């Protein structure tokens, strides 16, 4: 991970305070409930969009978040950016929380986000050069310097500045717009970039180009990524570790190869089984899980997946299983089948059998 920014004139990266051992981002018990206005005769209800989510991201790592629509992926991203107030939980950036030690402005220098909708996330009234230069100007860069930086960054993301700098967002393609959004995020010299479905709206060939670009930029600028997507292939390609979310909770996390090869939570297993196969002789004939996810206004008791889980037993509805180690490699799952001695009939009897049930 290089500490030198290759751009000539740029904002200094927010200082690495904690050193390499300090995780860049630690999230503990992050919770966001949205109130839903009940009608005259029914009480107020809440949507539990994000419920007690904890994870950490090491410096230089790429962490993926996967899950189906509405599982709280994007809400998590917005909470991390402090674009939304959280109800509970701590967000620790390089050992510091927003407060006296770390201003909100400094946090936003150190953490940037690329949105899914490449068109809506660019101001239609500004040229792409102006859009990229806006952030540095907010942080005190002179107009000319900011524009120069913007042009340089456009070059870095593969857009010739002399061709593109003065164009408006509607004059360029979706892939090009997403490159502009990436340049805009990089303009503040962040260390963490949150990519919220950043490639999901692009067609496959463009998606591949942008993924390669992201990998190149990560190396060049020493970035750390939080990569949110519903596309499992993409997540596997780009991530080091992965979080699987279901109805606002983390159900499984671990190194991406471990999770893909030995998924321990039945939801993860179902997600992976639902991936279309490229082999015509190996088609998925039956849906791995049926039904829609339950309404997050009224999530099921206990393990939230028990209503759709083929292995559900009475104890699953009683109490929520905690994230527990599946192995010593940091692979964790929130399922009684992965917890030795939990009482589930498929749970390993002792620690030696761990992981065997999932196969």
């Amino acid at each position, binding site marked *: 991970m290089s500490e030198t920014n290759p751009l000539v004139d740029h904002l200094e990266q927010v200082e690495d305070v904690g050193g390499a051992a300090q995780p860049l981002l630690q999230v503990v018990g992050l919770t966001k409930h949205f109130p839903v206005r009940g009608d005259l005769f029914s009480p107020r209800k809440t949507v539990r969009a994000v419920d007690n989510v904890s994870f950490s991201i090491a410096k230089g790592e790429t962490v993926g978040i996967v899950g189906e629509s509405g599982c709280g992926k994007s809400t998590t991203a*917005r909470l991390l*950016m402090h*674009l939304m107030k959280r109800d509970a939980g701590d967000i620790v950036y390089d050992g510091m929380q927003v407060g006296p030690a770390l201003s*909100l*402005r400094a946090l*936003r*220098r150190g953490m*940037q*986000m690329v*949105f899914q*909708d490449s068109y*809506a*996330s*660019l*101001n*239609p*009234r*500004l*040229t792409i*050069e*102006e*859009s990229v230069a*806006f*952030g540095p100007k*907010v*942080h005190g860069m002179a107009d*000319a310097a900011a*524009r*120069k930086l913007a*042009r*340089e960054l456009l*070059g*870095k993301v*593969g857009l*010739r*500045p*002399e061709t593109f*700098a*003065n164009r*408006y967002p*509607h004059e360029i393609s979706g892939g090009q717009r997403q490159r502009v*959004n990436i340049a*805009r995020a990089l*303009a*503040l010299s962040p260390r963490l970039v949150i990519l919220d479905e950043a490639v999901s709206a692009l067609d496959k060939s463009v998606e591949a*180009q942008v993924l*390669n*670009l992201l990998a*190149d930029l990560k190396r060049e600028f020493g970035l750390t990524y939080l990569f949110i997507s519903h596309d499992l292939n993409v997540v596997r390609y780009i991530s080091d570790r992965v979080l699987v979310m279901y109805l606002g909770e983390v159900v499984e996390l671990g190194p991406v190869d471990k999770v893909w090869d030995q998924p321990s939570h039945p939801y993860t297993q179902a997600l992976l089984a639902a991936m279309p196969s490229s082999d015509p002789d190996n088609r998925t004939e039956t849906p791995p899980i049926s039904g829609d996810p339950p309404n997050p206004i009224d999530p099921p008791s206990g393990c939230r997946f028990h209503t759709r889980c083929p292995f559900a037993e009475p104890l699953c509805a009683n109490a929520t299983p905690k994230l527990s180690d599946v192995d010593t490699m940091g692979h964790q799952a929130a399922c009684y089948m992965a917890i030795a001695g939990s009482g589930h009939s498929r749970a390993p009897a002792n620690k030696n059998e761990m992981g065997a049930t999932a196969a």
Partner: protein
Amino acid sequence: MAVMSDTALQAAPITKARGYWATVGRRIVRDKVSMVCAFILVLIFASALLAPWLGLADPYQGSMIRRLRHIGTPNYPLGTDELGRDMLARLIYGGRLSLIIGILPVIFAFVIGTSLGLVAGYVGGRLNTAIMRTVDVFYAFPSVLLAIAISGALGAGIVNSIVSLTIVFVPQITRVAESVTTGVRNMDFVEAARASGAGPFTIMRVHMLGNVLGPIFVYATGLISVSMILAAGLSFLGLGTKPPEPEWGLMLNTLRTAIYINPWVAALPGVMIFAVSICFNLLSDGMRSAMDIRN
């Protein structure tokens, strides 16, 4: 990956981007309807401004023996009014007051209403409620009645009628501004601007204003004709312009009695109000499509 080489980067000239308004200007010049309307408006404005130097008859000098001459009478190309005054001179001189009363309140209301609506729409919450509910109070009265009430309370006079018309238009523009702002504020580029650490005023100035101004502007230009007609009503009630001052609305009212004797002359001030209104409307329509640079 196609990352540009350093030499290509250095070769890139640092030219200033062609501004948004320059683009809009180029587009509107190409629009024929807008250009015709702009030409007519310039003609009316210029003649009103230069009235004393155009060699016109005295707009105040009447005569009992040449009342209500028809259009085309020698020396009186547009006839005479009910007191025998030259209509051409009165129409041109009348433009001075009518345009001021028609446009100034809209400009004032545009500035105030856009600011209020932008703040209400962007900040939201309690401030929005406070501003918008106050605005609703004004909405409870028909605009004519409100203008009469405020004008009556302030006393007769041109300045007071401008003030009262401004107060009438502020709520309407505020409401349009608020609804447009609310729509823009939820877009991702505003979130992205917040995420880059910008404060609310920078975001409003750089990211909101340019995106909300177009629709508000178009709505406001449509109010110019309403303003001229309301001003005419105030004059009729003795709250605005007073005779013998030439002003289109007032002229329309005083010529009203002559409509069975000489309808064409009586209609002339109305034709002027109509021409100015329609030109403003078409021009603002042209502006709106020119400002929508996505097409």
